[in-house]
């Protein structure tokens, strides 16, 4: 890279810094830091939020309504219950009737 280009970069960097005036040394040392409090503010906010969530007095959940025993109805249906039902259940549940000739109606 040539000296010309180095010189060009030197001028460019000088231009980037052009017009900057340093805050006086003493004033800078004695000034109140601005950002430090700015940094702490979100932290404090987040901390307060977490604390509020953790220590928030939770109300106990309302007790469940009393159960009336008479209203309880138990039923169960097993997966193999169908094996207990027989074909023509209705026919077998009653006594067969025959007419006077002895035929099946």
């Amino acid at each position, binding site marked *: *890279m040539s000296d010309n*280009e*180095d010189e*060009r*970069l*030197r001028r*460019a*960097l*000088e*231009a*980037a*810094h*052009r*017009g*900057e005036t*340093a*805050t006086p*040394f*003493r004033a*800078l*040392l004695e*000034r109140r*830091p*601005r*950002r*430090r409090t*700015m*940094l*702490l*503010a*979100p*932290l404090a*906010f*987040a901390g307060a939020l977490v604390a509020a969530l953790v220590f928030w007095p939770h109300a106990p959940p309302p007790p469940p309504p009393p159960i009336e025993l008479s209203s309880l109805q138990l039923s169960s249906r097993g997966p193999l219950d169908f094996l207990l039902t027989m074909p023509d259940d209705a026919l077998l549940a009653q006594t067969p009737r025959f007419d006077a000739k002895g035929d099946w109606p």
Partner: protein
Amino acid sequence: MKERPALIDRALASELAELHPASFGWALACCGFERQEAEDVLQTAYVKILDGRARFDGRSSLKTWLFAVVRHTAADLRRRRLVASLGLERLFSSLVRATPDEPAVGSDERTRVRAALGRLSRRQREVLDLVFYHDFTVEEAARVMNVSVGSARVHYQRGKERLLEHLR
């Protein structure tokens, strides 16, 4: 704060004051030319030094060491801000910051160069600023940036090429 002889503090403070204009320019470069941020960084760095939390060990020039402290402080502030903020800090600062840090109007050339610098990597920007504005050698810049000389040379070379390209 540790008790230190007042004489040492005065001598150190006067050396810091002497280097202050250059340190201020460096702090600005480390903070993307954000004036308020640069002031925060520089103030924190000075307090660190005057408190004895950062000690000059004489292995380099005072200026090189001071610039390294400023750079480290700027990086630390950036990191803490990133961790602490989660977006909230930006919200807070936008609420508090009533006036811009610097007048928006600047010389065209300054705006153009700053924009071009903004397109480089942080390390490229830093090494170019140290070499071309603060007259450091690449070796001294490497010490400020806490990288090897080889690495600083690479950043320097690529930074130069890219900056020239963006300025074209």
